[in-house]
Structures are given as C-alpha cells and as structure tokens.
C-alpha cells in the first residue's frame, strides 16, 4: 500500500512522539504537505501507551532489539536515487531507547475453580492464557512461571528461600532492609534479582509465594463490580482483562493553566481527549501519607494543620502566587536553596514540607528561584478544573500525540507506520537535507525534515547521557484510602546518606480508563542510577507489598499495604535535553523525547519554536473551522480559498499532485464569530462571514 506514497512533501516528520505530532499537525493545519512516519507499528514512539498484550509485544521487540530490522538497500538501486551534487547519509536503522524491560505477574495463576461460574468468560480467558503461553520466548515471562507451577502442583517454592539464595548473586545489592520492612524487602530482592538476571535464569524461577489450598478458592467476583473489592487476585484475572489497561511509557500530567492545555483548546485537539483531574496531592511526612491541602478551601478545612499553620500557609501561598511583586522578600535568596528561603519565612516543618515536596515538588537542593517558579505554576493552575493543579488524559498520555496526529491527518497529513528513513539525501554544496530514502527504497523529497533523535545520526546531537527509571504496577487498592476513587500524585522524597532522591508516584484508578475494575495503575518515575527495579525499590517497598500472599480474609487485606499484582520495569534514555551539533543541516530539526518531568509543557514550547523557525509568519495551530462551515465547492465553481495557501515561500508547491486532498476547497469562518453559531446558517451566510473574517485578518 505504501507504494502509492507520493514522493514530494513540504515537511517530512520522523517519529510519532508528542513534539513531532504537534509539529505535523501545525504544518498540515496551514496547508503544507506533511509526511509523518514511524518505524514502529504503533503511534507515539517513546510516548506510546499499550494494553497488556501490547506491552508483551513491545518487550519482546525491545529484547530482540531488532524491533525494526530492515534489509540494507541494494547499493545499485541507491545510486539511481541520487542525482549529481547530492550525497547520502546513512541513518541508524534501530535505536535503543529502552533498556531492560521486565514484566511480571506477582500473583499466582488461578487454580482449578468453579468452572460453571466463569463459563461465560472462559473463552475470552483461554485466549489470553493461550497468548501468555505462546510467549515462551520470554524467559522470565509470567507464563513460563505459571507453567512450572501448574505442572508441579506439589512443589511449594518459597520466595524467602529464593531471596536468600539470590542475595549473594545480587552482589552489592542494598541490604538496608529495616526491621519492619525486612521481609518485604527481601522478597523484593529475590523477585527482582531473578528478573534482572533474565538471560541466565531458567524458566522455572519461582515468583509465586504460596501454594493454593482449596480454601483459597473463592467465588468468582466479576471485576467490573466496583462495590465489592476483590481481595484475592490471580494473574488470570488481570490478563483476561488485558484490553482495559493502558500503560504509558511516558506518563504526563497537564498543568490546568499550562501551555499544553492552552494548545489543546486553541487547536481544538481537545475534542479528541477527555481528562480527569488529579483529585489529590499526597505527601509522605514522618513516615505517613497525608493529603496536602492546596486550595484555600482545602487549607481551611484541613484537619492536620493547626490554626496558626493555616494562616502561615495561606500567607505564603498568597505571596508565592505573585511572588515577583515582592522581590524584596526573596531577593537575597534567589540563588540559594529554596529550603533556606522557606526557613527565613518562619514556616513550620510541616508547612515547609508541604510547600517543598508537594506543591513545588523540588529537591532540597533546588534554588529559591526554581522553587518559587514551580510553586507559582502550581498555584496558577489550581481551581481551574478541579481541586488540584493537574489533569490526566483518559486512556493515558499516549492519547495526546495521537490527537495531534489525527488533526494532522484530517488536514491532509499523510501517515505511514512501519516506515522509516534509512538515508538522508544531502546537497553537497550547502549541506541541506532535501529528502530521505525509505526502507522501502523510495526517495521522498522534502523541504524540511523533523525527527526525534532516535532517527538521527548520533553525531547530529549531544545529550547528557541520563536515563529515567520507570516502574509501572497494577495494584489491588489505593496507597491512601479516601472517600472516593481518587487520582493521586505523590512526590516521594527519600533521603539517603549522600543525597535525596525523588520518585514521582502517580496512582490512577480505573475511571482514568487505564486499568480494570477495582485495580489501580501506578507509575513510579525517578532518574536512573542503577537498573529500574533497584532504583525504585525503596519507594516501591515503602508504599507496596511487592510479594503478596494470598489470603481469604478480606478484613485483613484492608489493613495491609496495597499488593502489587503485576509490574513492569524499564529504563528509558532521557532524550529531553539534546543539543544539535553543527553537522545538522539548517533545514533539519531534532525534537526532544520525553524526560522525567511531570508535564509536557516544555515540548509545546519547543515545538512552537521549531514551527516559528520554519514559518515565522504563520499562526501556530489556529482553531480549525467548524465542520458545518466547510463548504464543498465543485471544481467548476470559482474556488473560494480559505487560509490554506500563501504559506512559506512562493516557490513552494502547496497544490501538489499526488494527493487528492487538495481538490477540496474549504472556507473558514472567523473563529471569533461565535455568535452566529447558534443560528442555523445557510451557505451564503457562511461565505459572507468568511469574507468578513478574511478582511479582518487582512487588516491586521
């Protein structure tokens, strides 16, 4: 099908990550011909979200590391594609942006049960179990463990034993396990040391901690029944609902008053997404979780603050919201630690803790400048959509790039997955990139090329070699029970001897459309130091029971930490701070990948910057016309063109040949004329309005 791909475009975009997608949409929107491709068979690249099956597939791809394996092109054929004065520059066919992905079920496979009770589900279930069992290529996949378990019902592997036997193998593995957490920590060690030693490990590594006796067999509880919290979980319960999961590789929250929210509204991409507000911000204070009062109402109704504390906090928040106007207060502290400044404000320990670790979410070493700016951003986003400053996109952050891709496609952007560029076509005289050679051996000409670093030659950019550790858990209950199903954010600061490390914890309920029934999906993110499981171990052990025991006592379950039923760990190369080298052709732009930051606003700013470099006089993602205002004009009629042409330079071939989309003309009504929307407009009406609109914009 890709053979009908036209070969001339204004803009070619490599990679369907967030920044690339915003740019593809922005250029399509102003009428440029955009080709947007991705080497993967899914949208989003490092920003993608997957269901559980998708995660399995992704892990296999990453482990084989030849996720995109392309045949080198025939060199004779290549020569025919290049003209005098042009040269080819080879691109990396693959790129390892994810390291050591490991997924695990932490609970047993369901033993033989009340067959008839689940009869209606069995078909579905068998499919997913079958799928699991087919995954034996994965040495550490849950399925192989199940098999071991199933085949040897008499065997009762003990994790504690495993942990001990693995302890040595762990080498310098941390042994800080303190009294209360010792056994859990050990369990965790055992489990994840076996995981991280993946290749050498045989398939029968026991992750399962307890034999299942007949008394464990409870009636099948339908998972969609939210009222009855399931107290016993089996791996099958989760894998049979694999579609209900949406697991973000790069979870992001949107500041309610941030630039992503603004862009979504202005561009109308918002119509493709729905959101939930983060309903509470939690913090760990004195070893206990607390809900942070962030709004005025919260502060006053808070039970954990004393009255003087309430006044102090309100006073500080009022100041921070408009801190620039009180420069005398913080002038002396600008480059000093934020903590020192907070001390100077005579805040109590608790308030200081709230401000630093929950509102500003900065490390103790951060400067006052940074801390105040961060506090202000938080405060400005409060109360717009909810009680906290953040929104989370339903179905996961992976919806965002796809929303922009859809907008681009609707405006004529050409999309092709599993297509990559193997070579750049560069002019010898002035080092411009005038095209790409695809893995299909097709030459595609372009005026500008945009791509994420993973598509680019490694000498085109410098990055700071940092990695991000991510852990994603499915748990059976929330870390902090509240009145309703909450969507929680926790910035967990943990102090070790040398320094403090921060882990961002995002706990999503099923109403965020990312997990099933009564489960929660938890994202843990921190900067990488070792492997992801090791990096996140302190935080994970603090909050969760990583190696749950089955129990039939629901009352007891309620008192314990949430159990991790499934986990995924991986390390992601942090490509959020890259610097282009002077080797980069001037018409080639490299965008950033996702970083450890909580929000995507930086990517909006970067995308806008690149857009403005290419099209300085064009509007960045203006509001699209209302569908009702688009008039289909027959070819014979005088075409009343909207703002589609007059883009870029005169020599630009906006009309194009290969793509049929240019035939239709569209008319756009001035977006400001909202008033007429309620009237039933006739075509002539719209045309008039449009002309008025155009006149207006011409006057500008």
């Amino acid at each position, binding site marked *: 099908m890709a053979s009908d791909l036209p070969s001339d475009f204004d803009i070619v975009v490599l990679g369907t990550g967030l920044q690339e997608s915003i740019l593809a949409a922005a250029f399509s929107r102003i009428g440029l011909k955009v080709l947007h491709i991705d080497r993967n068979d899914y949208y989003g690249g490092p920003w993608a979200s997957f269901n559980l099956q998708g995660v399995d597939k992704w892990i296999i791809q990453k482990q084989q590391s030849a996720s995109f394996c392309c045949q080198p092109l025939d060199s004779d054929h290549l020569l025919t594609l290049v003209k005098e004065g042009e040269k080819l520059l080879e691109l990396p066919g693959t790129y390892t942006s994810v390291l050591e992905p490991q997924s695990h079920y932490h609970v047993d496979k369901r033993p033989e049960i009340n067959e008839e009770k689940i009869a209606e589900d069995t078909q579905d279930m068998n499919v997913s179990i079958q799928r699991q069992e087919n995954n034996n290529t994965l040495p550490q996949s849950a399925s192989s463990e199940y098999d071991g378990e199933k085949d040897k019902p008499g065997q009762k592997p003990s994790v504690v034993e495993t942990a001990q036997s693995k302890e040595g193998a762990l080498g310098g593995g941390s042994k800080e396990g303190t009294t209360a957490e010792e056994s859990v920590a050990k369990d965790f060690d055992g489990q994840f040391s076996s995981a991280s030693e993946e290749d050498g490990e045989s398939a029968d590594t026991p992750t399962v901690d307890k034999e299942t006796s007949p008394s464990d067999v409870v009636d099948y509880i339908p998972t969609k029944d939210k009222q009855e919290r399931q107290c016993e979980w089996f791996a099958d319960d989760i894998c049979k609902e694999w579609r209900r999961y949406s697991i973000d590789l790069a979870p992001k929250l949107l500041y309610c008053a941030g630039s992503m929210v603004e862009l979504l509204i202005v561009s109308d991409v*918002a119509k493709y997404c729905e959101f*939930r507000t983060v309903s509470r911000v939690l913090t760990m204070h004195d070893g206990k979780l607390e809900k942070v009062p962030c709004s005025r109402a919260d502060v006053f109704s808070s039970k954990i603050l004393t009255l003087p504390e309430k006044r102090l906090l309100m006073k500080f928040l009022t100041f921070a919201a408009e801190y620039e106007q009180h420069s005398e207060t913080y002038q002396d502290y600008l480059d000093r630690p934020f903590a020192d400044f907070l001390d100077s404000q005579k805040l109590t320990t608790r308030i200081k803790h709230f401000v630093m670790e929950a509102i500003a979410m900065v490390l103790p070493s951060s400067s006052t400048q940074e801390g105040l700016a961060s506090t202000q951003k938080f405060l400005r986003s409060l109360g717009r959509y909810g009680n906290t400053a953040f929104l989370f996109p339903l179905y996961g952050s992976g919806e965002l790039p796809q*929303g922009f891709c859809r907008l681009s496609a609707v405006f004529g952007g050409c999309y092709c997955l599993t297509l990559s560029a193997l070579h750049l076509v560069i002019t010898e005289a002035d080092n411009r990139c005038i095209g790409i050679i695809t893995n299909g051996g097709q030459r595609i000409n372009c005026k500008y090329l945009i791509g994420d670093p993973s598509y680019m030659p490694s000498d085109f950019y410098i990055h700071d070699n940092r990695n991000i550790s991510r852990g994603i858990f499915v748990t059976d209950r929330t870390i902090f029970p509240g009145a309703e199903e909450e969507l929680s954010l926790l910035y967990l600061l943990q102090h070790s001897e040398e320094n403090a490390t921060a882990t961002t914890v995002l706990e999503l309920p099923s109403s965020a459309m990312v997990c099933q029934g009564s489960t929660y999906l938890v994202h843990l993110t921190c900067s990488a130091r070792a492997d992801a499981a090791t990096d996140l171990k302190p935080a994970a052990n603090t909050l969760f029971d990583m190696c749950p025991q089955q129990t039939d006592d629901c009352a007891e379950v309620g008192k314990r930490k949430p159990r991790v039923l499934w986990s995924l760990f991986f390390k992601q190369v942090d490509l959020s701070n890259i610097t282009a080298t002077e080797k980069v052709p001037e018409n080639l732009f490299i965008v950033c990948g996702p970083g450890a930051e909580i929000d995507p606003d930086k990517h909006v700013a970067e995308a806008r910057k690149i857009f403005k470099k290419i099209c300085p006089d064009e509007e960045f993602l203006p509001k699209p*016309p209302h569908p009702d205002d688009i008039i289909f004009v027959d070819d014979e009629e005088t075409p009343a063109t909207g703002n589609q042409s007059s883009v870029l330079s005169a020599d630009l071939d906006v009309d194009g040949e290969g793509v049929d989309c240019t035939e239709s003309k569209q008319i756009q009504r001035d977006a400001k004329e909202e008033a007429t*929307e309620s009237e*039933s407009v006739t075509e002539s009406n719209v045309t008039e309005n449009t002309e008025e609109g155009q006149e207006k914009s011409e006057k500008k």
Partner: protein
Amino acid sequence: MYSPSGGIPEALARKLNAATVEKEAETAGGGDKKEHLYKILVIGELGTGKTSIIKRYVHQFFSQHYRATIGVDFALKVLNWDADTLIRLQLWDIAGQERFGNMTRVYYKEAVGAFVVFDVTRASTFDAVTKWKNDLDSKVQLSDGSPVPCVLLANKCDQTKEGLVNNTAQMDEFCKEKGFIGWYETSAKENINIDDAARFLVTKILEKDKAMQLGDEERDRDRVILERNGPQSPSARKSCC
C-alpha cells in the same frame, strides 16, 4: 433533558447542538425527546466508496469525482427515529491520508458502531475486510467488553460483481464467522440500501445501548472537557463505552 448516550465529548455535542438542535426542534415541533449521539466508523480499503456512502447518506449527494475531505472529522446525520427519539449519528470517515497506515486510537475511541466497506468489483478489497474488522475489534469495544456492532457493506453493487459476494449463503456464513451483524449490497451512486443498512445498524446500537445503561454515570461525572470558553466540569453524562 439533553443527555447524549454516545461517548461523544459533551463540548462537541453542545457545539453540534447549537448548530442543529434548534433546527431540529422546529421541525420536530419541540417537545421532550430522548436524544442519542452515536459515533459510527466507516472503514475499508482505499477507493471502496466510504466517502461517497457518507455523502449520499448525509448530504443526499453523489459525485463521480473522488475527493478527500480536508478539515472534517465526521459528517453528522440527524435521525428522527421515532416520536420520542432523536438520534445524531457522527459518521467518522478515514481522514484522507491515514490510509497508508494504521488509524490513530482517537479515531476508534468510543465508537459504538461501524461499517466496513468493500468494492464488489475488486476482490482484493474484500480480502482486506477481515483485516479491517480485526483492527476495529482490537482497538475498540463497548463498555461491556463486547465487540462494536459492525455491518459489512458490499458497495458499488450497481456494477459487475467479482468473487464471494455473488454467493449469498457464503456471504452470510462469512459474516457469521467474522462477527459482522449483517451485510448489505449498496450503491452510493444509485442510492441502494444505504438507508436500510444504517437503520439496521442503529437498531442494533439502540438495543445495545438499552442493555448497557449500567450506571456509569458516576464515573463520567468527573470527566473534564477542555473548552475554549473557560473551565467547566460537565454534569452527569452517560456513556456507551
């Protein structure tokens, strides 16, 4: 009074409302009507007549000239279903150039029905039907986990047919096997069976909708839709999926 049952963002629904409801209210003579908003996908290979079918159905218009639409997500068809029911169908076309690859999830998201279209004159387009159906089922389901009701359209039936479509029994068997709720021979050019196929699909969707009013309102109440005119948290809405 207004409560869209489809999974359509209310912001959008309200916009549509502004443009068309009043018109509708006039023709319907006012009165309290139950309203449903349903998102229906129209998928299938390039050149099978998806856009023509939509144009014919929504705009009562057919053109030999194929033209991909720019800037349009979907076409809206308003049905006065019965005395008490008004149905708005959003027919989502494949945006011109998504044809080369997979569709984005936002295209599939929260759809409650689908047409898979093939061209009876080209057997290859029929071969791709299964691929489209699988793609659909893998990307979207109703809230109860069941597949989205899907009707197969054998388009361009005014022309010479090729392949399986000549054998009704085999086509029935095929539909049963692949999980289509039915199939129709259609012609956008001659306006054959398009209204019937749509009516059939809508009937099934209504049945599903009725069976699935599961009390998801609570969860939906907290959904946030970003709108140009400031923040808002929509009041209770129901969703099909």
